[in-house]
């Protein structure tokens, strides 16, 4: 079924009888050509592009719970491609370009809203670093603009520039950045994949891999063994847990990142703002909630919930730049499990086991990467060579000393 305004009107006039499930609820088959483990954004996107761009058949997505229940359904919905390093920027810019045509591509309105993202600058050294970054973005074909404090103030008149502990000395803007309705991304990919024959199997937990003579033959699941020619893992925060079943240790730790939303408010924030001297970033959703976040809690966790000190730290940052938010109320806080890699950059690579592929290490940048991650992982699964924008995302980069460390924090995941 194709969604459109006309279809909505027709159904409204005829009692909404023809709407069918957005995706089927199939029983797993005994074997597939490709199994993607993880029904999150990346897994569903992978399946979608495998079917659509790489014309693969017999594909299944296995999800232990309900699709979209991981980080794609619990992030702060920001998209951007304001990266610095060679290994990253082309990939994230590819992703942003995919976002720009996504809704028409998969026929689902995910509300991709390019309302711009702004990183505030508070010191000369920070300005130098942001100039270098902005130049890297432009040299890679992305957009970037350096804004003066006056330009910023014109857009955000209630920004605290008068009594700021860390004076605002301008900002690096990416106008093509913005926000997306996160759940709809999972649903859109799921619906698009399903309509191309992909089996999306919920409540099917992978409990092990069947590996013989260095080759992966399929997966053991809570619903029995399912054979596969190729198995791709895209389970974000659960990566270490899953890959340990193939006796792999990953360059990664799982950390909790909290996110927050306020009560619905009439529009005040046109774009996304990031506070460069505190741990705070914020945007406003189409429903009116201020959606904001900050730093990791900082300790290994699989608990999908955080603690009070981080909540306070984030709100302190918010009050420092937007003192008018004091009278808005925090409505809900939640946590997601981040697959924090050792250099803050992801891995899309084959493993040493034939037929077993890995996609993970997204840290807290996974959402914006969803389309390109799916596209590149599909490319790798289909062709056994990396997509041109994802060649640096290899397992062996740590052993070889080819880290992609945007923040320069080294091999301590919670600092990225």
């Amino acid at each position, binding site marked *: 079924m194709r*969604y*459109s305004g006309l*279809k*909505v009107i027709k159904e*409204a006039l005829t009692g*909404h009888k023809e*709407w*069918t499930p*957005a*995706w089927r609820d199939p029983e797993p088959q005994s074997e597939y050509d490709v199994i993607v483990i993880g029904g999150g954004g990346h897994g569903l996107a992978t399946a979608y592009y495998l079917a659509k761009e790489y014309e693969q058949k017999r594909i299944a997505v296995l999800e232990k719970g*309900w699709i979209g229940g991981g980080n794609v359904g619990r992030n702060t919905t920001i998209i951007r491609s304001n990266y610095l390093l*060679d290994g990253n920027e082309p990939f994230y810019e590819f992703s942003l370009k995919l976002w720009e045509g996504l*809704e028409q591509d998969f026929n*689902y*309105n995910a509300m991709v*809203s390019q309302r711009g993202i702004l990183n505030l600058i508070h*010191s000369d050294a920070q*300005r*130098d*670093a*942001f*100039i270098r970054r*902005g*130049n890297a973005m*432009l*040299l890679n*074909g992305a957009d970037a603009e*350096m804004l003066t404090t006056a330009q910023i103030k014109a857009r955000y008149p*209630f920004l605290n520039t008068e009594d700021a*502990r860390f004076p605002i000395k301008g900002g690096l803007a990416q106008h093509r950045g913005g926000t997306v309705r996160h759940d*709809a991304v999972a649903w859109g990919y799921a619906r698009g994949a399903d309509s191309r024959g992909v089996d999306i199997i919920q409540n099917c937990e992978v409990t092990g891999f069947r590996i013989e003579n260095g080759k992966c033959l399929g997966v053991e699941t809570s619903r029995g063994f399912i054979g596969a020619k190729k198995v791709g893992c895209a389970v974000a925060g659960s990566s270490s847990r899953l890959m340990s079943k193939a006796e792999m240790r990953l360059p990664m730790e799982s950390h909790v990142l909290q996110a927050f939303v306020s*009560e*619905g*408010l*009439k*529009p*005040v924030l046109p774009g996304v703002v990031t506070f460069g001297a505190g741990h705070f970033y914020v945007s406003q959703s189409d*429903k*009116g909630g201020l959606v904001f976040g900050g730093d990791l809690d900082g300790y290994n966790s699989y608990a999908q*919930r955080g*603690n*009070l000190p981080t909540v306070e730290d984030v709100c*302190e940052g918010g*009050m*420092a730049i937007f*003192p*008018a*938010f*004091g*009278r808005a*109320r*925090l*409505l*809900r*806080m*939640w946590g997601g499990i981040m697959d924090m890699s050792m250099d803050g950059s992801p891995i899309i690579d084959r493993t040493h086991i034939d037929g077993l592929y890995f996609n993970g290490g997204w840290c807290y940048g996974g959402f914006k990467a969803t389309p390109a991650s799916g596209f590149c992982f599909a490319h790798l699964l289909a062709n056994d060579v990396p997509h041109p924008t994802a060649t640096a995302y290899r397992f062996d980069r740590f052993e070889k*000393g080819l*880290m992609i460390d945007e923040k*320069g924090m*080294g091999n301590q995941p919670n600092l990225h």
Partner: protein
Amino acid sequence: MTQVNRLAGGQIDRTKTCNFTFDGNPYAGHSGDTLASALLANGVRLMGRSFKYHRPRGVLTAGSEEPNALVELRGGARQEPNTRATTIELYDGLLAKSQNHMGSLRFDLLAINDRLSNFLTAGFYYKTFMWPAAFWEKLYEPIIRKAAGLGSLSLKDDPDVYDKGFLHCDLLIIGAGPAGLMAALIAGRAGADVIIADEDFALGGRLNSETLSIADQSGADWAAATIAELSSLPNVRIMPRTTVIGAFDHGIYGAVERVGDHLHTPDANKPRQVLWRIYTQKTILAAGAIERPIAFENNDRPGIMLGSALRTYANRFAVAADKRVAIFTNNNDGHRTAADLHAKGVKISAVVDVRPDAPRSMDYEVLQGEVVDTKGRLGLTFAEVKLADGSIRTLECGALGMSGGWNPNVHMTCHQRGRPVWNDGIAAFVPGADLPTGMIVAGAANGDMSTAGALKGGATAAKLALGLKGRLPKLPKAEDAPINLKPFWYVKGCSRAWLDQQNDVTVKDVKLSHQEGFRSVEHLKRYTTLGMATDQGKTSNMGGLAIMAELAGKAIPEVGTTIFRPPYTPTAIGALGGRHRGQEFHPKRLTPSHKWAEEHGAVFVEVGNWLRAQWFPREGETTWRESVDREVLATRKSVGVCDVTTLGKVDVQGTDAADFLNKIYCNGFAKLAVGKTRYGLMLREDGIAMDDGTAARLAEDHFVVTTTTANALPVYRHMEFVRQCLFPDIDVQLISTTEAWAQYAVAGPNSRNLLSAIVDQVISNEAFPFMACANITICGGLRARLFRISFSGELAYEIAVPTEYGDALMRKIMEVGAQYDVTPYGTEALGVMRIEKGHAAGNELNGTTTALNLGMARMVSKKKDSIGSTLSERDGLNGDGQLSQVGIKPVDPNDPVPAGAHLMDADGPVDAAHDQGYATSACYSPHLGHAIAIGFLKNGTDRMGERMRLVSPLTGVDVQVEITSAHFIDPEGERLRA
């Protein structure tokens, strides 16, 4: 306007009248009222509009679970959107406005959405607004956004202040209803440190809302007497107006106390609210229960509310919601409401009970049947009842109470991912076994719905929590009615029957969600927005779950609940931010010469919480460059002084001190002579440069190590890690002395002359050569330290005295140095001189550069074990194509060479694929008369003299440059050895 619906009795203070304004109209109520009760007393039922369809809304509840009666409270900078009228304590002069309407509240133009509701079903927006692609941002989204949100912020800075605090107790009791009060009484009498917190301003919970008695007194009187006794116990802290917002790990709870919200404005210097972090051994959750509504056609009109709310308004606030009230119930609670209201003289139109065995009454009519529709545009006028025989009966009523049973307040039992379990007896979820550490649940929150059950539950919980021995004390006699409830969630055949009244989610939407495959409870929530409103589904979720369960052919517990998340009720962001606002966001660190620098007009800059003098403008100087150029030239010509106290300092002592430095620095320290200083480069274990500084050997077993200002803390932490975790038997003692010593750089050809007049010892070049260090005295005996080190490339010293003498030393240097025209210089001049000298600093030590990149590859000793040396040898960090530090100067001396610009081949294309490197630090060199920069270039050491392009498309720079050595000045180092 008079208080037409005010009844007799209640717990309001009729001696105190509070005048207030709602939507510009003046009203009067009493102290002890909420805004909601006062509005109802004045006959106002219409208080707001719903989110999507802009349907008229009145109060649904009498508590913090209210989804409908949300207002903008106060005006000006104190305007507070989405404030529940049901929790606003009335004060004289209160000002409130309704919200979310275009035009007036009565004639809201956006009510057109209600006419279009058939088009605006759950998730409709995912299926449309996609063509043409560019129209989303330009047309559709702006329209949607404009309609979004409920109340509005003033966008003025919040004028109130907020405190944070910390409390410790043996037992935290959440909720001061019968269970909580009884628990507090037992624990308090037993001598435990008890905190009892309740969100309400009046303690007692439902006891204040019911006509039930405890022992021989009314419930409210028993509560008052109990609170009086608790108040007399020094070990009990009673906290009204305090909402416990979340249960965090290991017995930590967040609680917000509203100190000033019931006042016209908070007292001067006092906070509006306090965020308490409560550390407790045990917790009793006695948070009560919330009544649930029933879904039927048009069940959302103003006047339709929970039956328990009708009782609260009547019994506690002495307010009838209307002169004529009908009740729709599936259990005995509806009859309790009818009896209470009848006793107060309110006309009961009828009690509609779905149960065939409903109790009869002499006082009012009881109908077996269901309410199937209602009428009344801005407020309820009639309810249509379908009787058991199928006939329709119309009831005239201005209020209708819904009693669908009660949901225990399990919220906080689930904050650590515990899941509630289903209890058939009360047809509701009750706390599961997986509770937060130390939590015990009592009373209605635990599913004990009678007063006697609550008292007993509270007493038992207290005994359990404190491990008290012996029997429970005799509890007062109280109501102990059994539950008689027929689960009933919605009237069959209804469609526009509201579940989530704020977000406009109806039974029809749940059905559509199921039809389209959004059947998991989380999908249901996200697709329909059920339970995502400001009440987080407290009154709506159960109905949605029950209907989804029925559609899916499952039992309710199989469908499960969504996850309960903090905060329990929405919490002001200001309270979570506390005092850390404006200038107090982070503490400031001031240098010992700060006062002196202020007196001399310094401009300050923030560096790692320090405020450092950036430059010292003099009269007649119109740009910062003039000041900085002057400071640089004066220093290089004669002598300058700069406060460098901010550099981290670590005192390293012990017999293994030299060995220790050998481990943390990549270069060697074992052979450094006493009285000498050496530059040290510290690597992270991954082989990347971490920090640099100097180590001065004051004695065989004593070094003073310096770090960069920004890295003082992480470097100290790293040193302790190496000492305690890697080499636990090493005899080294560490302590930070950053703030113990005031330290000044004195630089320039006259620095020795100047210092000779201060230092008591001889500091000739022979006696005190380059890189010497010593404990000295100055000015006739003050202990001090002297280091002959140079960041500027000049003959230079750093001199340190105990911090309390720092101000005096600065003044002394300026006084003594006058004859040499000593010039104070700030961080800008410091930066210029180090760039001229090619010294790496923070911009170069950016966490991705190696010793090799910095031109110090040979420093990494291969003869010893040091942190990072092994991993620094990886192939990817060595060999052809590595970046190395170079100098960059413009071919045309008038061109800029900005930091952050990228290096490209002179004739090649300008794009990412041809990027050769970048400029890290740049300045105008007054010494050379043109701009210079240092930066990193691929194979840079082999490219001296090469012409390249330096481009910064971001800032519009594209210039020809020449690659040079980074040592722009005195490359042989003759000056600093002079």
